[in-house]
């Protein structure tokens, strides 16, 4: 049995092979899975908000897309990963409620996704697959053996990205 590591809301974890890193019930939050396929180091962050720059309280770096990704990359490098070999997969960023307006709160999912992409671009980490948007929750798990990311939903199937 692989070592199962849970990531909470506003949390990030990384580990060497063998491990499965999972986060449950992503809604408007975004799960960012990073993987080094050569060193088999996997990492996962569960971010709630796009940017630490706009927050009044930004001490929890795992909460924001911009700071969480930087920290996750550092952690993975200290576990032996090579920065230039890292690849990313994204999931989450749903809009759970569908009010007929475009208030900031309801578009937070989409904003989290674009902020995550921006942060990954800045670091030069390619995004090789994503399952984002929609109006449903997702549970995801990254497997350190192959870097596959499993996405489970209620009523929208199970897939591998």
């Amino acid at each position: 049995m692989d070592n199962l590591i849970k990531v909470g809301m506003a949390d990030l974890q990384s580990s060497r092979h063998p491990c499965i890193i999972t986060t449950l019930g992503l809604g408007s939050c975004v799960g960012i899975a990073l993987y080094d396929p050569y060193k088999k180091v996997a990492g996962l962050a569960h971010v709630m908000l796009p940017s630490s720059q706009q927050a009044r309280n930004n001490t929890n770096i795992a909460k924001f897309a911009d700071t969480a990704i930087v920290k996750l990359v550092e952690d993975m490098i200290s576990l032996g990963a090579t920065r230039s070999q890292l690849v990313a997969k994204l999931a989450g960023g749903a809009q759970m409620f569908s009010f007929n307006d475009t208030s900031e709160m309801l578009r937070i999912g989409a904003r989290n996704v674009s902020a995550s992409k921006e942060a990954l671009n800045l670091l030069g980490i390619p995004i090789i697959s994503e399952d984002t948007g929609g109006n449903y929750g997702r549970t995801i798990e990254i497997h350190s053996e192959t870097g596959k990311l499993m996405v489970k939903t209620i009523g929208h199937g199970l897939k591998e990205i």
Partner: protein
Amino acid sequence: MATGIDDLNNLQLDVLKEIGNIGAGNAATALAKLLNRKVDMDVPRAKILGFTEVSEVLGGAELPVVGILLKVSGDLTGNIMFILQHKAASMLVNMLMCRPLDELHDFTEMDISALKEIGNILAGSYLSALSSLTNLTIMPSVPDLAIDMAGAILSVPAIEFGKVGDTVLYIETEFSEGFEKVVGDFFLVPDYDTYDVLLKALGVVG
């Protein structure tokens, strides 16, 4: 400087908890009228939790739950959310529709509509308690409903709380009708610049 949950002192927290109690009490009375049955309510528990624990409050992040969200406007702006376990929601609908209580099935359009109305009435009575205590004008929007994993639904209020701090304030209420228990959670999420309005109206600005 706007106030977040983390900045509140004990007195302010107690006041917010008490509002939760009164609001939930009002909601229980409304529910009893709606169902035309006697509805008992345990003393609601106001809790403050860190994000990592939040998704576990209803019994696990992956458990299917029904979330009913209303936007709040007027002197106080923000959101109010009522969350029920899927099983509890199904029991409430069955009570309302006079079906056997333990009948479990997918919600029909009619059931969803009934649940929205339950959310509407519960949130409305909660807010009217808050409004009469504070003399603030507080108006709820029409409700919206989502059925999904607890973690995903709870991320909506959690993100709002996340803008100002690292904890979430919520009120857990347990309604019971006869031997049947229905556990539901209320999240009142004022926009971060209206926490001060709320506390000031209650006379507890620190």
